[in-house]
């Protein structure tokens, strides 16, 4: 749509800017302040420059949390996105049952995150939980509170349970926007199912899928409540993701300087990746 130039439009945006700036800029400046100061807990602060940043970037603890975080995000993206698309493809386009299906599928998205964690915590318990009992009775030695592999399996399964529906909804929204004429044309040309997917459905879903990947990337990188309730970062530190580690440093040990420096590094990683995504997406859209 060609838009008219109107500088007064700023007034329409002003309330949003004021509210978001209040919520974003002031806390961000607080974090920047902390990240460059040293305190001994008596409300006096000393300038410490980039010391905390160096300390964080040199610590093994940060890199291993980041490594676990990247592994988690990578795993859920390569499972949830193809799975979500596959499920959306099998959904019928019309019919009274479609909205019932969509409502049921969206249900996990609306459960408070700590309830999701608690639900899976109990569901997967090896002695009294359905999943744990089932896995043990068919011969797996499954105990997510003791074994690292099992903890990871449960964590990823929980996230797949929680968020795959978002990808399904988005992909489905993309699919229903394809006019019937496209399929009829493909039928006349005798296109195979794969060709229909590759040349009609996938290009039409490209935009919503980019949104899905972007949302899943951001949210999985920010995930905190569910793993804390499920495993508490354990056993040991094996499922301690970035945000869990951050909260441990900031609120547990009250090391504000290092925590703030870590926050900024953390935020920058998300920002940079999303910016790259966003620019690529805008370029695609303009073409």
């Amino acid at each position, binding site marked *: 749509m060609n838009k008219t130039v109107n500088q007064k439009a700023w007034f329409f945006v002003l309330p949003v800017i004021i509210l978001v700036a209040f919520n974003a800029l002031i806390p961000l400046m*607080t974090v920047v302040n902390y990240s460059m100061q040293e305190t001994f807990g008596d409300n006096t602060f000393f300038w410490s420059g980039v010391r905390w940043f160096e300390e964080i970037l040199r610590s093994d603890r940060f890199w291993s949390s980041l490594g676990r975080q990247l592994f988690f995000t990578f795993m859920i993206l390569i499972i949830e996105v193809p799975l979500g698309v596959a*499920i959306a493809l099998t959904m019928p386009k019309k019919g009274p049952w479609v909205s019932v299906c969509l409502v049921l599928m969206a249900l996990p998205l609306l459960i408070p995150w700590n309830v999701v964690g*608690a639900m899976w915590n109990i569901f997967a318990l090896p002695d009294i939980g359905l999943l744990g009992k089932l896995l043990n009775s068919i011969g797996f030695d499954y105990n997510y509170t003791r074994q690292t592999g099992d903890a990871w399996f449960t964590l990823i399964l929980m996230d797949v349970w929680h968020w795959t529906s978002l990808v399904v909804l988005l992909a489905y929204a993309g699919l229903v926007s394809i006019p019937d004429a496209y399929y009829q044309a493909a039928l006349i040309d005798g296109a195979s199912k794969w060709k229909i997917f590759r040349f009609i459905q996938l290009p039409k879903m490209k935009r919503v899928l980019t949104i899905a990947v972007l949302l899943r990337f951001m949210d999985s990188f920010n995930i905190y409540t569910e793993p804390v309730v499920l495993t508490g970062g354990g056993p040991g530190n094996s499922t301690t993701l970035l945000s869990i580690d951050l909260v441990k440093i900031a609120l547990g040990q009250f090391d504000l300087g290092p925590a703030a420096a870590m926050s900024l590094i953390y935020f920058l990683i998300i920002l940079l990746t999303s910016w790259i995504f966003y620019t690529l997406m805008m370029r695609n859209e303009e073409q």
Partner: protein
Amino acid sequence: MRISKWLVPALYIFFLMLPIYWLVSMSFKTTNEILGGFSLFPQNFTTENYVKIFTDPTWYWGYINSLAYVSMNTVISVAVALPAAYAFSRYRFLGDKHLFFWLLTNRMAPAAVFALPFLQLYSSIGLFDTYLAVALAHTLFNIPLAVWILEGFMSGVPKELDETAYVDGHSFPSFFFKIFLPTIAAGIGVAIFFCFMFSWVELLLAKTLTSVEAKPIAAVMTRTSSTSGYELGLLAAAGSLTIIPGAIVIWFVRNYIAKGFALGRV
């Protein structure tokens, strides 16, 4: 053919319902039965857990508190997002693209990063432990989302609608409220849904910004588990009840939910 058509969605929904079933079934068991061993169905069916929640003020106030700040947040977010989304969809102005991306970056901010600064900020302006504090804090990620969704819907409305209205002698406010808003009612519904959803499920900020008066239900649950032992049945009942408001909201917007994102442009 008819059955196989539904096979994959049905299996997927079955998988989704399993943990929910487990939670609901546990809410009808006594804590002794839960800890005593494995049972697929409640053996001694009890509604005691629900009775406790509906009669104990600390429990049911948790729900009222949560619903209060979630509604406030939804109203504030959508109200300020409407004019902004209109500006983004209709006009070009200095820095509009950068502004749009800056708004989106706030959707990316990890709550863990902001928890402590938020606590200090809202304590210093005297809003700590009020609904307004949580409602305002949640606008950080809900306003960008609402602007994004509404902008998508508004861009789908042809500009001719605006022009015809002016020719017909409508002033801007009269056009905006009487013609434009009803046209994008579906979009407003979807925006309300997503604001409600993300405010309802968020806990870290809500818990950090409250202590007694405005304590959300999710925080009541975590505190109960630590003070009075492990009352699993009660926790399961409380958890089951948190699913209901979301389920009601989603039922109202079921026909628009898929569209919400399809029209959205990043």
